């Protein structure tokens, strides 16, 4: 199967947040009591019970005093996922056949290192201290169904399908550069932005933290090589010099 993904088109989004509701419904996530912060953007952030949300970006200008951007926020299902790289518990985070980054709460050990390693600040922890985030409706897509957010979207702002086809679609629609096409070996949620990613509240070049990359590429192999190197050096030393021989010291007892 080819890699599947979401195509997010903020220009088509009307901010109805049906995707948020559909997500909660399918994944049986409780609602959250929030406060009026002077915006219809709600809830304010992702949480263990909020896997996706629409970020409202207000950009009033003289030309367009009502410019309002709606950006779908969720796990990006990175091709090179920082969370999976750092996770110390095998099977806690895993990639589905469709390319989603899903998880098994029973295998999560609650260390929260994935939080540290995520380039998009996505993973949250529930009351049982287990990872909680969007899994692209892994249970639906494995059956050939569409994730509930994309299924419910009335405008086509959220589309699910074959990643290459979606990229082709976006390019055909005139988006020369699709956000997430190449970053992190390709994101599993690509964005048809008309402006710079920063405007939409996204990093221009998302990356796994350097400390994690260094650990993965250098320190992990070194932990073996150092040990093997000392063992080899010890053998060489033993063959070349042998155990330490010290000449008798004159006794003066």
């Amino acid at each position, binding site marked *: 199967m080819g890699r599947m993904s979401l195509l997010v088109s903020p220009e088509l989004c009307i901010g109805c947040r049906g995707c948020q509701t559909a997500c909660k419904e399918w994944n049986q996530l409780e609602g959250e009591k929030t406060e009026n912060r002077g915006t219809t953007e709600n809830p304010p952030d992702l949480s263990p019970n909020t896997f996706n949300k629409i970020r409202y970006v207000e950009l009033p200008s003289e030309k367009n005093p009502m410019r309002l951007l709606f950006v779908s926020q969720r796990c990006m299902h990175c091709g090179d996922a920082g969370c999976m790289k*750092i996770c*110390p*518990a*095998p099977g*806690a985070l895993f990639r589905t056949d469709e390319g989603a980054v899903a998880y098994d709460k029973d*295998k999560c*050990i*609650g*260390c*929260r*290192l994935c*939080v*540290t390693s995520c380039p998009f*600040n996505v993973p949250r*922890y529930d009351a049982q201290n287990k990872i909680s985030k969007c899994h692209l409706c892994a249970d639906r897509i494995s059956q050939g169904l569409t994730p509930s957010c994309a299924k419910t979207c009335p405008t086509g702002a959220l589309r699910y399908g074959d990643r290459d086809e979606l990229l082709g679609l976006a390019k055909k629609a005139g988006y020369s550069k699709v956000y997430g096409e190449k970053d992190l070996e390709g994101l599993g949620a690509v964005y048809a932005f008309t402006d710079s990613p920063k405007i939409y509240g996204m990093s221009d070049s998302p990356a796994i*933290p350097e*400390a*994690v990359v*260094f*650990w993965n590429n250098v*320190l*992990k192999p*070194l*932990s073996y090589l*150092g*040990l093997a*190197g*000392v*063992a080899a050096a*010890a053998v060489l*030393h*033993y063959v070349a*010099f*042998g*155990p*330490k*021989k*010290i*000449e*008798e*010291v004159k*006794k003066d*007892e």
Partner: protein
Amino acid sequence: MSNNMIKKVSGLEILVHWTMAISFFILVISGFGFMFHMEGVGSAFGGFEQMKTIHNWVGVVFAAALFLTIFHYLPVALKFTSDDAAWLSKAGGYLSKKAQLPPQDEINAGQKLLYIAVLVLGTAISVTGVIIWLRPDMANLNSAVLLSFLIHNISFVLFLIVIPVHIYMATLANPGTLRIMISGTVPVEWARKRHAKWVQKMGY
């Protein structure tokens, strides 16, 4: 103590040494288990979640033992003497077939260096381990956790070089050394060859 034996370390030092050694091995094995997703290691510890709990608490034991060593060895390890300079300039005699070293005191430069390395790495790995373990769920602490993660793992790599060297030095390279950390005593003549100044100070 028989007449031709000399006491090199106390019972407490032996206890602290093996507490550190055993906890070190538990920490290294579970550390490798996490790093390379070793399922066998995980099951040996009763699952990865339990291995995390054991890793964290054994780390506390290791840190506590390390703290006690400060009183045993830090003052002497920080004293750099002319004997140490001579020892270092000859690489402890380990790179020649016939060791020609000036008489040494209780602890030679190599042993001092080992202790300082263990203290520095042990402190670094313990402090950063606690930060990773007890990190509050706040995004603005990410950089502190990342730095801790980095230092924790660099210390791990360096420990895996320092401790095997220590083990080689205390066994194959210097036969008869291991008993210091078992019975606490060594034959006077054996000690005189290695720590002549100290043996003399002790009145033998």
